[in-house]
């Protein structure tokens, strides 16, 4: 007995490509997985599109990655048996930021604050981006998850 599952990968892919054209790069590495790559500025629009057209409400988590040339903020959404990994590319700059998706999906609150704490990516438009994960006396501008963070000196083994 193997259960069958509805698969909406193709539909989502088409819808995103029609709406955003060249701005998005959509991959479908395996069934029920959709990897979407966009620039930072378009990420909010993509989330809005998914929310309004497809009823997206669930965010699993938001991963921040320091990919040397740039930062990546990956939103892991889940929509009707499909996981959408929305990758927003954030250029390396003094104060990196992304648009906050808090107003569309309130469940993203903690993850946006966690990324701000650990990777220093500011969620623009978040009502209360106060410190969440790190202690109160942790120095400002000290982001442990960045690759240039001196981990060995700070005692991570």
């Amino acid at each position, binding site marked *: 007995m193997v259960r069958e599952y509805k698969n909406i990968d193709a539909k989502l892919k088409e819808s995103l490509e029609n709406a955003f054209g060249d701005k998005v790069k959509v991959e479908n590495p395996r069934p029920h997985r959709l990897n979407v790559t966009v620039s930072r500025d378009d990420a909010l629009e993509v989330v809005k599109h998914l929310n309004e057209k497809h009823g997206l409400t669930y965010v699993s988590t938001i991963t921040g990655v320091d990919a040397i040339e740039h930062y990546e903020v990956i939103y892991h959404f889940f929509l009707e048996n499909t996981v959408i990994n929305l990758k927003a590319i954030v250029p390396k700059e003094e104060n990196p930021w992304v648009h906050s998706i808090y107003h569309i999906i309130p469940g993203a609150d903690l993850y946006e604050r966690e990324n701000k704490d650990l990777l220093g990516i500011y969620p623009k438009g978040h009502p209360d981006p106060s410190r969440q*994960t790190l202690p109160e006396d942790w120095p400002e501008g000290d982001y442990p998850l960045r690759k240039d963070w001196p981990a060995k000196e700070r005692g991570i083994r």
Partner: protein
Amino acid sequence: MAEVKIPIGPQHPALEEPELFLLTVDGEEIVKAEMRIGYNHRGMEKSAEFRTFLQTLYLFERICGICSHSHTTCYILAVEEVAGLEIPERAKFIRTLVGELERIHSHLLWLGIAGHEIGFDTLFMYSWRDREFVLDILEEITGNRVNYGINTIGGVRRDIPEGKIDDYLKALDILEERCQYYAKLAFEEGTLAARLSGVHYLSKEKAIELCACGPMARASGVATDVRFEEPYLVYDQIPFNLVTYDSGDIFGRTVVRVLEVIESIKIARYCLQNMPPGEYRLEKVPKKIPEGEAFSRYEAPRGEDVHYVRSDGGENPYRAKVRAPTMQNLLATMESLKGSYIADAPIAIASMDPCFSCTDRIALVRDIRSGKESRIRFRDLSKYGKGGER
């Protein structure tokens, strides 16, 4: 009476782990609930970058003592997806079996704690006694009562012991009978229902809006379960039911968990009876994982567990992200706390089955006065343990 701020935590008898919930109360009613997490932040995601994939596996085993198998399985599914490994069928069955036994043990543990929070210690003693059946089975299969360490890249470390399956089935039968009795008790016994009904109400809309997961969402009538939505391991072969309840309160969460234990017993029994013969791990597993990324979801006892692994082709993960179910449920819990009574706060916080060790993941102890970091090195620790000699 003026506004009084009642701190629940960082140290509090109702919390097993340090976390701060600051409740502003007006008399007995909570008017504002704030929280501060991070007391248990151990920097596991950072330290994973300095470990090989296999070492990280055993590091993630230690994220949490109760859902350790969930975290390692979730992580290893992601690693195996990146590496393109197909593991033997028997290994999948053993992982599923251990995962379900862990769910039974976790839910019974929760039931006991919930009983303790509402001052019903008899329930606590009984459910923890029955939990021993599962712990004994787990000990025989994996060698440990907690932190099983059964997973390894490419399969599992140990096979099911020879000729023991009948004993396990027998123990599961007794456990099922007891759980049926608890389920009956939960529905028929008045005081438990009177104490838990209507408490910490989470509506279906709020549950969806705040992205609740696991038994918390299911008790609000949201049919979400990764085992159904995106079956991993062998869940697409096993017949079982998705338990939901639509009362949205703590009573609903209790019912959902007790019924889930019964479903888990069925799954565990199916695994034991239909265990395919053959190898239980791959002979050769590459040390270096090819470049790539994977995102995996796993239905942990507390809800959806999520891991993201990226490899740059080396021996160490480039990035390993962990998101425990408790984190996902925190917002919904805080939202529902407003307007309830302080008498209900401990059981309300407990009702999401919180695991803050999972939620926070740096062993940096900072001396606040000097601002200097002080850590206990392993050498010093072992010296300390031996009574300060040498």
